[in-house]
């Protein structure tokens, strides 16, 4: 692996901080106007706890998960925290073996679904994450490269975000709005897509 896992976490932090106000604005429309603030605080705390010397994939993902759980708050803290912890559980040493990446992605997705008791079509992070996972696995299974898989996953996640604009929220705080939530994109699906984008960009650097 040429790039450290730390560099990926930092790239995630940067993209979240860059989009902090945007995410908060999306949340203000259908939620409680704190998604960007909370995610930025969480990723800043995580990066602060890590250093360039932290090279072990499993360990860094675990630290990131615990850091997010104890600093983000709201629903995003447990959800994103679980995502990293579950991926850490199945990570193998420092392998970026495509099949292991698929397993990590799957564990993360299952973890988020279980923690949030959500499925696709409820205007949540799952609407970006599940199609992204499916696209990622499809490319890897048909012999594609990790970069191609990430590109397809990002594309699918973005389509997922667009899809959240068309549906009524049935999970999370936006569900209180009922039909009024239509037309707005889900902040959680959006932040997930941003994270994916930062991973791809860092991978290609």
């Amino acid at each position: 692996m040429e790039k450290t896992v730390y560099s990926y976490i930092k790239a995630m932090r940067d993209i979240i901080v860059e989009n902090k106000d945007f995410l908060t604005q999306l949340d203000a429309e259908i939620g409680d106007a704190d998604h960007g603030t909370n995610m930025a605080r969480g990723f800043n705390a995580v990066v602060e706890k890590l250093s360039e010397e932290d090279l072990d994939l499993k360990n860094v993902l675990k630290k990131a998960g615990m850091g997010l759980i104890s600093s983000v708050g709201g629903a995003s803290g447990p959800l994103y925290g679980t995502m990293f912890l579950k991926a850490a559980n199945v990570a193998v040493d420092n392998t970026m073996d495509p099949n292991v990446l698929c397993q990590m992605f799957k564990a993360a997705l299952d973890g988020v679904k279980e923690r949030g008791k959500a499925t696709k079509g409820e205007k949540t992070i799952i609407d970006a994450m599940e199609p992204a996972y499916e696209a990622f696995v499809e490319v890897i299974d048909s012999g594609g490269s990790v970069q191609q898989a990430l590109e397809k996953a990002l594309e699918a996640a973005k389509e997922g975000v667009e899809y959240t604009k068309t549906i009524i929220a049935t999970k999370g705080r936006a569900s209180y709005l009922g039909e009024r939530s239509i037309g707005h994109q889900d902040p959680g699906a959006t932040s997930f897509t941003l994270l994916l984008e930062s991973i791809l960009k860092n991978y290609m650097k």
Partner: protein
Amino acid sequence: MKKLINNPENAVNEMLEGFVKAYPQYVKRLEDLNVIVRSNPKTGKVALVSGGGSGHEPAHAGYVGEGMLDAAVAGEVFTSPTPDQVYEAIKAVDNGKGVLLIIKNYTGDIMNFEMASDMAKDEGIEVEQVVVNDDVAVEDSTYTTGRRGIAGTIFVHKIAGAKAEMGGSLQEVKNVAEKVIKNVKSMGMALTSCTLPAVGKPSFTLGDNEMEIGIGIHGEPGTHRDEIKPADEIVDELLNKIFDNLKLDSGDEVAVMVNGMGATPLMELNIANSRINDVIVNKGIKIVRTYIGNYMTSLDMAGFSITLLKLDDELKELLLYKSNTPALVQF
């Protein structure tokens, strides 16, 4: 944005400092945590822990004290506290009789409190939880996350707190908390939005002649927007929705809470209450006690919520039991 703050990022911390400095006779803060506990804890009783995002003051720390909570956990503004903080609160107040968590029905709150509960149970602490969902503005169906917890939560603190103070077991305290939850309904409205310190601009905007009906307590938009009307008409609309969801007959007894959202003059809350009282009394329903004031706020929002709690003998006795906390003193 004009606010009496120093730094948005330090708002919660400084608020808690100011709070414990004001009420050392009631509360203290656990070191390095956003957890407020009683300064003179009572042992040998079930402990009650509540909490949630900040911005709802005096909830929840204001209700820590005799006859109500044992600990309150404060999250960031409108953000559930994290599991580690809730876990520390549970550990700090458990004295062997078990701990009841009083959670408002929000996805984040439930996830964080449940993670904390799992951590505490792993350590052998007996933990139970109840989820408050009194807001009738939101439809309750299997296709939603269910109804929000709003001002009715204070009645859960009050009554479950009294039961615990009187020596009730964990199961008994939980049962009575659930009885309150079943019989308490609320509905709110806003005249203005609110501004989170870290955001700096209002969460939504309302025209001079507009109001938002069916709001929660986080500046989230309500169920619908309408032209502003006289107080009596607004009261009738909110009350009707509550009556649709809480079966009340002539001869029944209720407790009433007229809760300000943070920036509503008491004058207006009293004006609203005059109508509330008339409507209820005209139905032959007896009001046992009325609470008017800021109990569960939404930062600087102007507006109010009405809460009705249907009482039976047990709930009435516990409601009238004494409490001595920074935000609710009752003898």
